[in-house]
């Protein structure tokens, strides 16, 4: 596949305008999320920190910046961003575009709540800014949240301003025997609680006194580290309302599907060596009112399953930003225009 790595804005615009179709690309850690791209010119934007003022608790980076590098910079100032991709080489732009939240969502919220301003280039080469650089801002419509999880279908994200936070002064993983029922009620603000069918893992962060109190309150045993996400060629992420996480986990366990559930959040990572594992996991999720996103593998499986409500509005959004369907075709297929005349403009 052709890969363009434009070094400035003009070059990026020229590349986008000249290409038949564009496949916005980051580090490629989650290249299959949300649908398999139908070719197109792969475009990767530069890395680099644009601005970081620790006193403002914000940091602005070019979208090609690896999260690992951002984290190292912020760590020098005792700060962090709660993006937490599974692979630190993932780029900031890639994490935003896929919208997959990380380990500590329970405490710090989803990816969409970490983004303050986003700049992106649309199919016709226009640079668009949405949001603003301050920690608090309600000026205008929320383009940053629109772009998070948009999978490159609306444009190429080139820069983002993110919320930085003080790094917790203490942090500890601990475990308990499952199931996780009731554990959330005994903890105050855990950063992460997982359940893999045999062990509950808890990440407590904050003032060292609080970390200790959290572990005591839930009678946990200190652990060297966190749980592993399930491994396998075919991977997916279930999203269900938190109250059904235990029945969903129990059914996955009975079906022999490896999983790691985030208690209190409602995501369940699943994996298998055969695509049928994802088919079965999707059936479990949908039976409980949720869904499964195909993350990798299972090429024959639809990326999303049942299209969401509001798909007509989504199609009109797509048409407004990318009328000719040139951005990331194949990803989020349900927003692509139906055959001529079928979509109201």
């Amino acid at each position: 596949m052709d890969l363009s790595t434009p070094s400035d804005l003009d070059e990026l615009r020229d590349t986008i305008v000249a290409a038949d179709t564009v496949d916005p690309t980051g580090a490629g850690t989650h290249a299959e999320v949300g649908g398999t791209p139908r070719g197109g010119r792969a475009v990767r934007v530069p890395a680099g920190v644009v601005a970081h003022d620790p006193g403002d608790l914000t940091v602005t980076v070019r979208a090609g910046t690896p999260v690992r590098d951002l984290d190292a910079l912020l760590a020098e100032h005792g700060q962090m961003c709660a993006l937490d991709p599974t692979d630190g080489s993932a780029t900031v732009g890639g994490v935003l575009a896929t919208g997959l939240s990380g380990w500590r969502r329970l405490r710090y919220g989803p990816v969409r709540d970490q983004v303050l301003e986003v700049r992106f280039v649309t199919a016709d080469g226009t640079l668009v800014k949405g949001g603003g650089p301050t920690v608090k801002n309600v000026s205008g419509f929320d383009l940053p949240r629109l772009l998070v999880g948009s999978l490159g279908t609306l444009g190429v994200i080139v820069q983002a301003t993110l919320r930085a936070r003080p790094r917790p002064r203490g942090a500890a993983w601990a475990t308990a025997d499952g199931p996780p029922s009731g554990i959330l009620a005994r903890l105050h603000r855990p950063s992460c609680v997982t359940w893999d069918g045999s062990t509950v893992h808890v990440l407590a962060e904050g003032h060292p006194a609080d970390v200790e109190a959290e572990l005591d309150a839930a009678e946990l045993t200190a652990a060297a580290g966190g749980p592993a996400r399930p491994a396998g060629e075919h991977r997916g992420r279930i999203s269900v309302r938190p109250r059904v996480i235990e029945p969903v986990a129990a059914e996955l366990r009975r079906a022999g599907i490896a999983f790691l559930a985030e208690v209190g959040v409602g995501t369940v990572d699943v994996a298998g060596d055969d695509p049928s594992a994802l088919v079965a996991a999707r059936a479990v999720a949908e039976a409980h009112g949720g869904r499964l996103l195909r993350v990798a593998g299972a090429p024959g499986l639809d990326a999303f399953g049942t299209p969401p409500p509001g798909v007509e509005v989504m199609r009109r959004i797509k048409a407004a930003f990318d009328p000719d369907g040139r951005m990331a075709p194949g990803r989020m297929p349900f927003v692509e225009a139906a055959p001529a005349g079928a979509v109201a403009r």
Partner: protein
Amino acid sequence: MADLAAALGPGGAREEPLELAMYGKDAGVTRGRPGAVCFPRDAAGVAGAVRIARRHGVPIVPRGSGTGLAGGATPADGALVVSTTRLNRILAVDEHERTAWVEPGVLNLDLTRAVAHLGLHYAPDPSSQQACSIGGNVATNAGGPHCLASGVTSAHVLALDVVLPDGAEVRLGGLEPDTAGYDLRGCFVGSEGTMGIATRVAVRLSPDPPAVSTLLLEFASLDAAAATVGAVIAEGIVPAALEMMDAEITRAVEDYVGAGFPRDAAAILLVELDGRPGSVAADTAAVGELGRAHGARRVRVAADEAERALLWKGRKSAFGAIARIAPDYYLHDAVVPRTRLVDVLRTVYDVADTHALTMMNVFHAGDGNLHPLIVFDASEPGIWDRVASAGDAILRACIAAGGVLSGEHGIGLEKRDHMPLIFGPDDLAAQAGLRAAFDPDGRANPGKVLPEGSRCGEIAGAPEGTWI
């Protein structure tokens, strides 16, 4: 009217002149004249009203409690105002999941009161929380002092059942953490009524902290107070709330409610810390020491819940207190990078001096969200021009310092024409494109948020100079 009366029943729609005048404005400074106002009782009623308005070619203007300050609920002339006050039921509370489904007319504080026995609360707490509605909070993406640590409304809304401007009903977002496709929920929150009307809102409830500590720090200068704010953040402490009040507003509040505020301080900080007892005790000591190191002449820690409540009553009574000083006020809302607070405050006071106006400041210092408050008597000839001119100068100063137009009140009608100060034509066109995807015919709250001429598809203007 006949159609509305038939659809909504007796009293469901009104067009008496006095009533129309009442629904012609919100708590801000703009005014319009609606054609009618209606009070649906359920989602079907809202959808019916929207379809009737559409059939008659009349725009709709959703309205919560009318406490907004930016003119978001000020109707275009002849519009149908859809009031959500009768959609006021709390439909379901799940204490384990910490979620609730509520109708949009439920008042913010009523929701918190209804879940208090479960050890839960709804985090966004605008100063108007006794009167403002959840639906209005959704429309403006409202904030409040405790949004410093927990984020504004959008971080607390999980799902919405909405009536789109064409009358169709659709669910946006969900109780599951990730829904497929674009985050329409995120787009709708803060859309100020331009994308439809919410009929049910699923909110995230927050657990009450095991320990809370509230400090009052008194300073002999604004600079010392602002330096303390910076020092607290630099120490890695993000308080639950971090509020500043200047000398004028502190005195006014003390005269009004007797909260125990000092009448002679140049500035006070109200700092709230919450969490488990260990960190709260440690951080309380640390904030006190940082304050003293930066010139606090007195640090008081609320000894009990009653004293704590009184301190907050003082903070939240600011806008009642100023009624004793002058009959009218104009409250601004802008955000600056926290590190620029002192510079911008100086400019704000200069602007007041050059316009010969009385200015007070009470604001969310922790996140740089300023609320300059101009008090005046509207009967004084020519005063409004001076107030408006000062407001414009303040906004420009905030933006020159790298700030934005609104931190929690919204844009509405009031700041619509200031939008080009922070967004270029392409940025505004993109926002217009998003809005048009929800409302292709421009029937929902027309004329709000975006200045005239922001069109989807109009690609114009020079690129911003910098790469990205």
